[in-house]
């Protein structure tokens, strides 16, 4: 008896279906939110577009400028020329990459979104450039029970943290006074938002690619049900090395104190 082992070449997902530990049907049914469509968001959106989840929401209130073009391949010069919305431009490019993917673009401040909004998703991908926004996403996802996968880049360094509520450690468990002073620095002593010069964060396309891909891999595993524990990965592209850091719940973390109450 002979068995036909040829792959279906008409199915664009045929090779993805062969990956062990990734449930392509669950991913195609999933709702995923990407917050931030900058350098990191571009990488995450590209990978997710290839899978075409049922719902892909892209949140970003910024517009494309020329400085984005060096590392954001979903944007082009016309987007920069017309100051097109990052969420719109990324959404259009995702459709071009895979016509099955129809993202919805939300041109709004992520900190205006609440836990009810995030509860609509199977996974939220944080690709933002501020600790303040990370804290907002982390708390709202934690309380809505939505897995949150945070990515961060700075030069040749990267971070990927997977937060799995309701029991695992969260972003708030990993931070300290140096993070909080960064949040405070954005405000004047009156509590108003201050217009102070901020450091421009170095961005290397290769590190963005690594961090974004790892975020997506973590997200796909969460949706596929093959990831049961949160993790914090620290990437040093200068060595190069990637180190999983052991992280425990900080009993003084506000998210965990409140969740106990």
């Amino acid at each position: 008896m002979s068995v036909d082992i040829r792959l279906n070449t008409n199915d664009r997902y045929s090779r993805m279906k062969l990956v062990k530990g990734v449930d392509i049907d669950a991913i195609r049914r999933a709702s995923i939110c990407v917050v931030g469509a900058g350098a990191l968001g571009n990488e995450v959106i590209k990978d997710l577009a290839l899978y075409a989840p049922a719902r892909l929401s892209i949140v970003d209130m910024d517009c494309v400028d020329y400085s984005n073009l060096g590392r954001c391949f979903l944007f082009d010069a016309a987007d920069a020329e017309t100051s097109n919305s990052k969420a719109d431009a990324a959404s259009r490019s995702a459709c071009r990459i895979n016509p099955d993917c129809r993202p919805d673009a939300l041109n709004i401040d992520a900190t205006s979104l609440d836990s009810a909004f995030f509860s609509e998703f199977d996974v939220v991908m944080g690709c933002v450039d501020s600790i303040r926004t990370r804290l907002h996403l982390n708390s709202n996802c934690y309380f809505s029970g939505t897995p949150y996968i945070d990515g961060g880049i700075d030069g040749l360094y990267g971070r990927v943290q997977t937060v799995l509520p309701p029991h695992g450690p969260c972003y708030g468990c990993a931070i300290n006074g140096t993070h909080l002073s960064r949040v405070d620095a954005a405000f004047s002593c009156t509590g108003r938002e201050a217009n102070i010069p901020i450091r421009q964060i170095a961005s290397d396309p290769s590190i963005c690619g690594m961090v974004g891909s790892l975020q997506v891999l973590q997200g796909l595993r969460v949706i596929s049900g093959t990831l049961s524990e949160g993790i914090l990965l620290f990437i040093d592209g200068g060595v190069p090395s990637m180190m999983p850091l052991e992280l425990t719940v900080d009993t003084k973390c506000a998210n965990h104190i409140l969740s106990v109450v």
Partner: protein
Amino acid sequence: MKAIKLEVRNSQTGNSALMEVDSKTRMQEILDSAVEFWSLSREAYLMKTGKRLLSASKTVSDCGLNDGDAIDLLPDPEGG
């Protein structure tokens, strides 16, 4: 209270410093001292020993650190 000597290492520069602390010293104090000592820029940092992330709200004793242990300071990337 017996002094505990810790080696604090800056992973970005390779520099290290010896700090004498006691078991009740909070990890945040060690982090703040290192940032000030090396005049580090106002960024976010993480502390680890081995592969274990150290909580800033805990004390040296809570973290199970002993005389001669090393702490690594890592930058915590904020960009996106």
